[in-house]
């Protein structure tokens, strides 16, 4: 019969079409997976590059000198390779930044989440997120041309490059970030917990401090850790405003180089590939990654320990 033949060929067409579509699906899935693997390869590449270039560095420099020498002068004739001054610079600017950003950011977050009207919150939140996009080199300009002169009026002996100004500006820079992430964490505390607290006669401040903040503690810790990571890794503000001389001090009024500023300083020059100066920036980068990692591990364990389940 004619119709059977037609059905048969139709069936054939349908089946070959289906097979084609299935094969196409497999190919596309593989391609998509490959794109997902780019993230894994990036991480691996960071680790491999940092470790391999640093290991070349540690062939010339003993780990003991690296960790105990208090001078960092890899580019001088009298070369010293002690990372401590750079670590001190990084930790000092980070501390100054956190002294500003953690209290201010948390208070703004509590205010926005628990006190502010819906309209105010919906206006301020996008502004906070917008501020996170401002290029850091612009903040560096603020630190050097606005904040430092202002501080010099208060403290006449303050040098033109100092860690205080850089740290304050980094703090101001991460306030919106800390506030925005903390606010998200506090909003996610369920409403009934607040209502229970209000029903017991607590004021908004008591509810905020004794119910919402403990309830959102893991989210707050995450916000602080993100803030710390940004402060530790911040490069342009310190490179512009804190000076580039390694200086083993924890006094924020002095000038000093951070790990990131050192990497920038070396990159601005023209160091030949494979020289000890070239390798030293990878060793510095490795230390930077380790510091970030340590803060993240601390944050992660805090988050684990204080996680509240409702």
């Amino acid at each position: 019969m004619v119709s059977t033949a037609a059905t048969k060929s139709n069936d054939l067409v349908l089946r070959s079409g289906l097979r084609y579509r299935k094969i196409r699906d497999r190919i596309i899935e593989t391609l998509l997976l490959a794109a997902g693997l780019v993230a894994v390869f990036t991480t691996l590449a960071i680790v491999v590059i940092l470790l391999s270039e640093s290991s070349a560095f540690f062939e010339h420099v003993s780990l003991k000198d690296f960790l105990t020498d208090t001078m960092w002068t890899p580019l001088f004739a009298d070369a010293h390779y002690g990372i401590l001054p750079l670590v001190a610079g990084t930790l000092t600017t980070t501390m100054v930044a956190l002294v500003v950003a953690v209290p201010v950011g948390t208070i703004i977050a509590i205010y926005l989440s628990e006190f502010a009207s819906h309209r105010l919150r919906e206006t301020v939140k996008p502004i906070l997120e917008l501020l996170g996009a401002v290029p850091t080199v612009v903040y560096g300009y603020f630190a050097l041309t606005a904040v430092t002169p202002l501080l010099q009026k208060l403290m006449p002996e303050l040098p033109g490059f100092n860690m205080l100004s850089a740290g304050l500006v980094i703090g101001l820079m991460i306030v919106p970030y800390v506030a925005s992430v903390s606010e998200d964490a506090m909003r996610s505390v369920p409403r009934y917990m607040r209502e229970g607290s209000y029903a017991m006669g607590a004021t908004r401040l008591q509810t905020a401090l004794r119910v919402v903040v403990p309830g959102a503690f893991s989210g707050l810790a995450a916000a602080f850790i993100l803030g710390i990571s940004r402060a530790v890794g911040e490069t342009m503000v310190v490179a512009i405003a804190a000076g580039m001389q390694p200086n083993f001090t924890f006094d924020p009024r002095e000038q000093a180089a951070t790990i990131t500023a050192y990497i920038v300083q070396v990159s601005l020059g023209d160091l030949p590939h494979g020289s000890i100066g070239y390798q030293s920036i990878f060793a510095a980068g490795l230390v930077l990654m380790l510091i970030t990692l340590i803060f993240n591990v601390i944050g992660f364990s805090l988050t684990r320990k204080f996680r509240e389940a409702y």
Partner: protein
Amino acid sequence: MATLPNAVPEYLKPDSIRTGLSRRKMLDQVFVIVGLVLMFACLGILAILFMNLVMDGSERFGWDFFTNFPSRRAERAGILGAWVGTSLIMLVTAFCAVPVGVAAAIYLEEYAPKNWFTAIIEINVTNLAGVPSIVYGLLALGLFVYQFGLGQSIAAAGLTLALLILPIVIVATRESIRAVPKSIREAAYGLGATRWEVTKDHVLPYSTGGILTGMILGLSRAIGETAPIITIGALSFIAFLPSSPVTSEFPFISFAWLKDPFTAMPIQMFNWVSRPDQAFQANAAAAGAILLGMTLLMNAVAIWIRYRFRKKINW
């Protein structure tokens, strides 16, 4: 009974309750004031600093500033090389980061089985978002510049920034894909569509808004990044343009510019800021104001797109 009714402790007496209550209410009010003052102080300081930047730079704004190369004379120096370099780098970054980021997000949301392997990819995406940007610069210096032999070129810079914004694109795309209701996918599967057909014809069209937003936010982050491209060795004094992407001979498009040395807006600004000569601070401010304007504009566009698409879709 051990406690007699008249042995009410001091803090439970009506008077002390009343004073306690009024004190707590006062503290509440104090906090409102502290919160408001801190918030507006922060926003106010930033607003003043931004206005300062624009005013400091205002004397340099003008046609010449955009069409001049850097110069030793501050009033003659412009940003021609910088904005051309930035535009070309952004082109490379967008071409690399968007397809890869969107594809990775589609894989994680629509295809990936729930197992340790997928978990590894997800952990990597999250962690990469927290890696300091200068570390990407070190990665690029070791990998792109020397291992791949790209040199200190526009291609190397574009690829570096593409890796940097990949997590942003992935996270934004995943969120918008997740917002598409399951019922839409199930209806398509019910009609015999394959997974890719469901994704291409139903999920992606609905999530375009979110993907565009993520792409623009990523690029607005990339445009201001200074540290990674300084690390790969961008030059700050460039008095020539990369070779033109459009040529007069067949095939009219040339990719020679990918291998050219470059400078970029944030690097030009950094170079001017770090000069001791005060006259260059105005140039730095002008470049900063333009950079700031570009990032804010991109963010505004992203917010607008998100809003437009959200209004158009009714499930």
